[in-house]
C-alpha cells in the first residue's frame, strides 16, 4: 500500500505539469482526418454488419468503445497490416500504467488521442498519438475508496472506458460512473450508482446508446441484487433501473414482453422462481457486455449467476439470473428474455459478449445474435424474438447434454449436480466456464468467430471449514484443472452457420485476453505467458509474435494513427481470476485458492510476473 500511495502522488504531480504545458492543446473531435495511406473496409458503427465484404462501409480507423461497434464484432476494416507483412510488425511505443493488477481493458482511440484505464485505482491516461513516444496529455485519478478492495467481492479489474460525444465514461470499483471531458480530463459528472457496503462493485465497460450510459454491477456472491442502469449522458442522472430478480415492475417487464419459450413466460417469475424472499439477495449482476441493434432499437445483454452459488438453498429457476435480455434503450423495457442457465449449478454467469450479425442459415437470411456462452455452448439466436436457432458445444461439455431447441431448455446432467458432502469429479466446463468475460471477434470477411477461451474441468470434494465476517462456515473444495487434451486454453475459429470449428490453436494457459479480427485477414490475441500473437484468420497459422512484459488478459485493438498508418495496441498485465496467483500473490500450495483456480495455474508464477504496460505496434 505504501508503494501505491507513492505512485499516486507521483502521477498527480506529473499530470499537473502535463496539463499545464498542454493547456492550449486542442484534443481532437470524434472524426480524424481522412487518410489516403491506409485502405480499409469495415463495418458501420451502429448497425449489425452484413455477411459479406461488399456491403462494408469504410472503417473510420478509430476504436471508440471496447467492442469497436454496437454489433460487438471487434472487427477492423484496416488492411495495411495483413498476412503478407505482419511478420515485420514492430513495437513502436510502450507506456507503464503504474498499476500491478490484472489489466483487462481495451485502449480507446479517438482522433489522435489514445485513452487507457487501469485496474483499481482506475487511472485514466490520455496519450498523444501525434508525437513520438505517445506523451501523456492528461491523467485523471478518480481516487476510489481503498475500502472497496476489501469490501468488494472480487477482482479489482476494469474492462474499459467508452467515448461518446466529446466525453469518456467509465465505472469504478467503488460504484461510481464518471464522465470526463475527453479534451481536458476534467470530470463532467460523477454519479454513485451502487454501494460497496452492500457488496456491490463495478468492473464492466459502459455502453452509450442514444444518450444513455448503460452500466451494471458486480458482486453476485455478496447478496447483491443485480441490475442494469441507464444514466443520462449529459447529466449523469439515472433514467431507469432494470433489476434482474424480483417482480415484473422492477425487472421492467410490461405488456410488450414476448419471450419466445414458454419456460420464460408468466407473471412475476423473478419472484415465483425463488424460495420466499431469496430473490432479494439473488445475484444476477451485470458485469459484462452489451450490444445494440439500431435498426431494431434493442440492446442485448445477459445477467450473472444466481446467489448464493450453493444451489441447494435456492430451488427454482431463479429468474432472471443467467438470462439474456432484449430491451429498449430509452426506457429499459424488456422485449424478450431467454434464460440460458436456469437454476445455475456451476457459476455459469450469463454476461458474455453477443455479436450481432446477419447470417444465411438454411437459405434464409436471419438476424442473429451469437453468444459463446460460459456453459459451453455457442448460441446462435434470432435476435428479433429470442429463438435459439442452434446451440453447439465449442469444447468439452459434460455438465449438460445440450439445449432442447423446442423448449429452449438446457439439459443438465444429473451426475454432475453438486451437493455439499457429495464428491463430484470431472465437471466440465469448470466454474469459469468454457469462456469467461474475454470477448470474441467476428470477421465478416471470413464469416468466422474468433473465440478466446479456456479448457478446464473441476472436481468438488471434501468439506472445508472457513471463517468470514466473524462467522464460521463450510463449503466444498473446488479444484480446477486442465480439460481433455491437457491444454488449459484455446483460440478457436468457428463458423456459426455450420456450427463447426474451422481451426484451433491450443494454448497451455487459458486464453484470458480478447481478440480482434481485421480486414487484413489477421486475428490478434494474447497469452497469459505474455505472448502477443498475430494469426492468419483463415488458417490459424501464427504469423508473428512478440513477448510482452507480463501475461496478457487485455483486449487488443487496431486503429489508424494520425500519420495514416495502421497500429495495433494491447495492455499487458496479468491478473484476473485466472491470474490471481500472480497478481494477488496467492500461495501455490493452496490448491483451492481463487475458488479452485489456483490449482490449475500453479505454474503461472514461473511463466510471468505482474506489471501493467501498454504496447503499440506498427510496420
Amino acid at each position, binding site marked *: 500500500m505504501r508503494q501505491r500511495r507513492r505512485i499516486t502522488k507521483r502521477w498527480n504531480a506529473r499530470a499537473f505539469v502535463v496539463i499545464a504545458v498542454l493547456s492550449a492543446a486542442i484534443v481532437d473531435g470524434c472524426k480524424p482526418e481522412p487518410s489516403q495511406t491506409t485502405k480499409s473496409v469495415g463495418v458501420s458503427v451502429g448497425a449489425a454488419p452484413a455477411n459479406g465484404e461488399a456491403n462494408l462501409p469504410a472503417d473510420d480507423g478509430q476504436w471508440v468503445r471496447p467492442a469497436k461497434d454496437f454489433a460487438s464484432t471487434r472487427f477492423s476494416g484496416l488492411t495495411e497490416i495483413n498476412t503478407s507483412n505482419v511478420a515485420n510488425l514492430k513495437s513502436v511505443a510502450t507506456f507503464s500504467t503504474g498499476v500491478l493488477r490484472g489489466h483487462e481493458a481495451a485502449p480507446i482511440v479517438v482522433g489522435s488521442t489514445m485513452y487507457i484505464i487501469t485496474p483499481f485505482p482506475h487511472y485514466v491516461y490520455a496519450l498523444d498519438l501525434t508525437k513520438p513516444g505517445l506523451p501523456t496529455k492528461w491523467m485523471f485519478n478518480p481516487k476510489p475508496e481503498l475500502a472497496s478492495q*476489501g469490501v468488494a467481492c472480487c477482482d479489482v479489474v476494469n474492462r474499459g472506458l467508452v467515448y461518446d460525444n466529446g466525453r469518456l465514461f467509465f465505472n469504478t470499483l467503488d460504484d461510481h460512473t464518471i464522465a470526463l471531458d475527453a479534451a481536458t480530463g476534467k*470530470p463532467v459528472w460523477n454519479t454513485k450508482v451502487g454501494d460497496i457496503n452492500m457488496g456491490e462493485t463495478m468492473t464492466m465497460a459502459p455502453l452509450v446508446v442514444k444518450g444513455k450510459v448503460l452500466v451494471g454491477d458486480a458482486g453476485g456472491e455478496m447478496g447483491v441484487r443485480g441490475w442494469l442502469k441507464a444514466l443520462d449522458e449529459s447529466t449523469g442522472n439515472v433514467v431507469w433501473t432494470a433489476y434482474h430478480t424480483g417482480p415484473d415492475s422492477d425487472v421492467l417487464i410490461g405488456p410488450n414482453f414476448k419471450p419466445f419459450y414458454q419456460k420464460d413466460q408468466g407473471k412475476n417469475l423473478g419472484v415465483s422462481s425463488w424460495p420466499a424472499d431469496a430473490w432479494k439477495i439473488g445475484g444476477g449482476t451485470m458485469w459484462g457486455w452489451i450490444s445494440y441493434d439500431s435498426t431494431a432499437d434493442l440492446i442485448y445483454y445477459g445477467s450473472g449467476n444466481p446467489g448464493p452459488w450453493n444451489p441447494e438453498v435456492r430451488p427454482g429457476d431463479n429468474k432472471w439470473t443467467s438470462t439474456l435480455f432484449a430491451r429498449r434503450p430509452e426506457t429499459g423495457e424488456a422485449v424478450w428474455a431467454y434464460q440460458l442457465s436456469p437454476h445455475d449449478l456451476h457459476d455459469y454467469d450469463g454476461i458474455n459478449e453477443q455479436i450481432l450479425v446477419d447470417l444465411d442459415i438454411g437459405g434464409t437470411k436471419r438476424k442473429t445474435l451469437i453468444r459463446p456462452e460460459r456453459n459451453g455452448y455457442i448460441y446462435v439466436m434470432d435476435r428479433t424474438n429470442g429463438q435459439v436457432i442452434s446451440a453447439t458445444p465449442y469444447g468439452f461439455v459434460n455438465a449438460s447434454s445440450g439445449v432442447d431447441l423446442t423448449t429452449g431448455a438446457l439439459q443438465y446432467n444429473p451426475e454432475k449436480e453438486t451437493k455439499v458432502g457429495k464428491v463430484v469429479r470431472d465437471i466440465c466446463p469448470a466454474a469459469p466456464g468454457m469462456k469467461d468475460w474475454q470477448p470474441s471477434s467476428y470477421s465478416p470477411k471470413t464469416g468466422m468467430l474468433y473465440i478466446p477461451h479456456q479448457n478446464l474441468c473441476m472436481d468438488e470434494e471434501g468439506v472445508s471449514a472457513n471463517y468470514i*465476517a466473524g*462467522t464460521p462456515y463450510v463449503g466444498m473444495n473446488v479444484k480446477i484443472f486442465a480439460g481433455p487434451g491437457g491444454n488449459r486454453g484455446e483460440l478457436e475459429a468457428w463458423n456459426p452457420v455450420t456450427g463447426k470449428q474451422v481451426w484451433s490453436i491450443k494454448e497451455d494457459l487459458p486464453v484470458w485476453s480478447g481478440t480482434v479480427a481485421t480486414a487484413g485477414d489477421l486475428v490478434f490475441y494474447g497469452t497469459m505467458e505474455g505472448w502477443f500473437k498475430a494469426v492468419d484468420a483463415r488458417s490459424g497459422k501464427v504469423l508473428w509474435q512478440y513477448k510482452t512484459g507480463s501475461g496478457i488478459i487485455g483486449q487488443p485493438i487496431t486503429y489508424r494513427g494520425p500519420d495514416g498508418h495502421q497500429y495495433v495496441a494491447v495492455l499487458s498485465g496479468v491478473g484476473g481470476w485466472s491470474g490471481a496467483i500472480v497478481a494477488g500473490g496467492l500461495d501455490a500450495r493452496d490448491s483451492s485458492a481463487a475458488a479452485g483456480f489456483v490449482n490449475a495455474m500453479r505454474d503461472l508464477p514461473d511463466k510471468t510476473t505482474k506489471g501493467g504496460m501498454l504496447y503499440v505496434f506498427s510496420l
Partner: protein
Amino acid sequence: MIARAARLLPLALSLGFGNASSPGALRVCADPNNLPFSNKAREGFENKIADLVGRELHRPVEYVWWAQRRGFVRNTLTAGSCDLVVGTVSGMEMLATTRPYYTSSYVFVSRRSRALGITSFDDPRLERLRIGVQLIGDDFANTPPAHALANRGMTRNIVGYTVYGDYRRPHPASDIIDAVARGDVDVAVVWGPLAGFFAKTSAVPLDVVPVSPRADRALPFVFDIAMGVRRRDSTFRASINDIIARRRPAIDSILDAYGVPRVASTSVIPSASAVVPSASTVVPSASTVVPSAARDR
C-alpha cells in the same frame, strides 16, 4: 472530485501507510464494523481481548481496519501491515492459528414467548416455521444451518440474510436477530457469539439454544476459535499461546460479558470426534475465502 466529500465513510482505513505506527505496538488486524466482534470504537469482545493481550505484552494496541471478507488475511496479516487476527477458526490454513480460546456453537434463536424449545434440525415443527438463516455467497459454501436445512429439503420456508448485512449500519450482522425479535421469522439459526450478544441487548426476550447434536453428517455446528498470526511468527505465536493459557479466566469473563455461548471444545469430546466429523476433523483450508483478486466479476 464531485461529491467525494459527502461520501459515507464508515471505513476510513489507515492501512498502515502515512501514519507510522508506534514502535513496539501490537498491530491488530480487525473489521471496523462487525459487532459483537470488533468495531472502530473498540467496543467488540475481540477489541477487549486485544487490549488484554497488549497489556500482557506491555505493548500499546493499534489497529489496521479492513472488512473481514475475502482478501482480509491477504490484505492485512499477510501483507505485513498488522500482526494479529483475534478471531478465526482453529486450524485455518491461510494463517497459523494459536490454541483455541473459546468454542461456540450455532444456536436456535426464538422469542421466549413462543416457547418453541427447538434444539434439532430434525424437529418436525421446523417445516411449518419461517426460519431465518445466514447465507454465504460462493464456492458452494454456506453456513452449516443453511446446508442442514437444504439437505432436509427445507428451502421454501427459509428467509436468507447475508453474513455481511448492511455495512452502512453500526452493527450490520444484527438483522437476523432483529427479525426474530420483530416476529418476521419464527426462529433463526445463527452463530453463537452473534446470537448471544444481540439476544442479550434485545428488548424482546429471546431464547438461545445450541444446535444438537453438535454435527450433522459432515456438517459441524461447533467450532473452536483461535487467534491467527503469520506462519513464520512462531515465537510470537508461542507468546500468544502462553497468554491464552495464563489468562483464560480473564478471556472467559470478557466472553461472558458479551453473552458468547460456550460449549465444550471439539478436541475434548472423543466420542463426538470418533462418531461424527467435528470442526477439527473437517480439513480447514483457504478455499472458500477467495482473495479479492481472485474472481472476475
